[in-house]
């Protein structure tokens, strides 16, 4: 099943709070894992990195080594790393880094130097936080409610095709494209053949979750020169399965629905702000007025793009 959400504010603000509300309302759609992609105030240079470690006892030495790998690629930490203080063996570390020379090569080495640490997101503004558990539990553990930004995505996972693991939950980063994240409700039936074709092009996948594929698929099409809109419409024709997905970038959220109209999408779009979710009751957590204009995108083969109008806090 799964529940997804997207939110755009009309000015930088408390995006974390809204995403948690949207996902708390949809927790019944998949409570095994919850995740958030939060777009903070964008940096001009340097990246925010979210990494997931799997052995908290070796946190210090693994982050040391992570830094050493980064230095080999011409970058360095700009701030001291921070991490959650949960009681699980796995943890989410937040780092701010200067630009490495080659994003794809660096992420490859950073993911591969040991099996205990992998990158979850890289971006001027994107941060992906995801974990097992419901919306409130994940938000409490990682301080999501206090995150400030402009837009973001949320996901409640009911695993159907791959393991329940904190790193196999959504959102997924479109490795190695900075600031691109996806949430998806559905199943991709030609996942393995597409994955193989993308791997032959040099892309890497760290899970067997079919949704990880879509983010890379769309980004690869855009790298080849398609507009976001063209890539979205192409995905409806070329990717087989059932889906409603939202793909977020630094200044937009795009979405597409399969040709069988199997998965819902409910949207409020007014005055430069957007709330989108699988279920109408979720967007009503944000827009409480009875007469707010709500659109149900229930039809087949639909797509759309919402722009993020105002990304900088007023001076």
């Amino acid at each position, binding site marked *: 099943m799964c529940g997804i959400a997207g939110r755009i504010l009309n000015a930088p603000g408390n995006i974390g709070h809204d995403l948690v509300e949207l996902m708390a309302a949809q927790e019944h759609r998949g409570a095994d894992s919850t995740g958030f992609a939060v777009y903070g105030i964008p940096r001009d240079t340097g990246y925010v990195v979210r990494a997931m470690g799997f052995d908290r006892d070796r946190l210090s030495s693994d982050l040391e080594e992570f830094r050493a790998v980064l230095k080999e690629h011409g970058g360095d930490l700009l701030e001291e790393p921070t991490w959650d203080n949960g009681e699980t063996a796995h943890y989410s570390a937040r780092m701010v880094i200067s630009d490495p020379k080659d994003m794809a090569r660096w992420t490859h080495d950073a993911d591969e130097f040991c099996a205990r640490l992998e990158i979850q997101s890289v971006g001027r503004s994107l941060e992906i936080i995801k974990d097992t558990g419901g919306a409130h539990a994940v938000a409490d553990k990682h301080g999501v409610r206090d995150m400030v930004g402009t837009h973001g995505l949320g996901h409640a996972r009911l695993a159907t095709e791959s393991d329940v693991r904190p790193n196999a939950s959504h959102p997924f980063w479109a490795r190695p494209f900075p600031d691109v994240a996806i949430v998806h409700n559905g199943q991709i039936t030609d996942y393995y053949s597409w994955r193989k074709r993308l791997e032959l092009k040099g892309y890497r996948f760290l899970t067997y979750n079919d949704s990880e594929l879509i983010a890379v698929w769309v980004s690869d099409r855009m790298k080849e020169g398609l507009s976001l809109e063209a890539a979205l419409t192409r995905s409806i024709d070329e990717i087989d399965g059932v889906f409603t997905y939202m793909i977020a970038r630094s200044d937009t959220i795009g979405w597409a629905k399969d040709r069988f*109209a199997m998965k*819902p999408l409910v949207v409020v779009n007014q005055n430069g702000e957007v709330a989108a979710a699988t*279920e*109408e*009751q979720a967007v009503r957590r944000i827009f409480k007025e*009875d007469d707010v204009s709500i659109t*149900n995108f*229930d*039809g*087949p083969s639909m797509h759309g793009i919402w722009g993020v109008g105002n990304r900088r806090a007023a001076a």
Partner: protein
Amino acid sequence: MSEVVIDVSDRPIRDVHMDIQKAAAAGGNIVVINTCSRHNLAVGLPSGCHIRFEGSVGYYCGGLNTGATIEIERNAGWGCGEAMSKGHITIGGYAGMSVGAAMLGGTIHVKGDCGPRAGVAMKGGNIVVEGKIGYQSGFMAHGGKLIALGGAGSSCADALWAGEVWVTGDIADLGVDAVVTEPTAEQVAEVDAILDPLGLKDTSRDWRRIVAGQRLWYFESRDAKAWLMI
């Protein structure tokens, strides 16, 4: 008759349901407020009660209805009136995916448009839509009538089994094995008799009555293409 007001807001849906069932058993008029598009409201209501929802409701509202009169002021989510056997549901606005799915009897009246697969697998009763019915409406209907006054989306009446889909207005395209027939005067009178109590009878309408071509009733290899809908 006294009116019972029930507030939904963020209360546990089970508590709301118990309140509605209690009021319905007493046979009164019920008004439900602050619905917040929540799911599974007014499921399995008995005949004799009248319930009105202010605002919009979520999934499966009025499902398994056995005779209640249900009014929804604005929109209904997916599966409104699913498997109802008797009663009347009025949706003031838009009805989401699969309105009246597998219904057995009674009437659903939608004042706005419908999402995809309205009347999917319906086995009896009537669905009257003042607006347009969505993609694949009437999909595999076994009985009953789906009546659209504002046209139909693509794949209309796909794989229809034995129900009827009546449309005035544009039909984007027909689904597999859907056949358009010219209705007889008696058949039109039957439909008018359904529309009349809703104040929607209009004898000037140009109807298309869509029924099953019956090619899918039995599989024959020469029809394999018709089965491959994709």
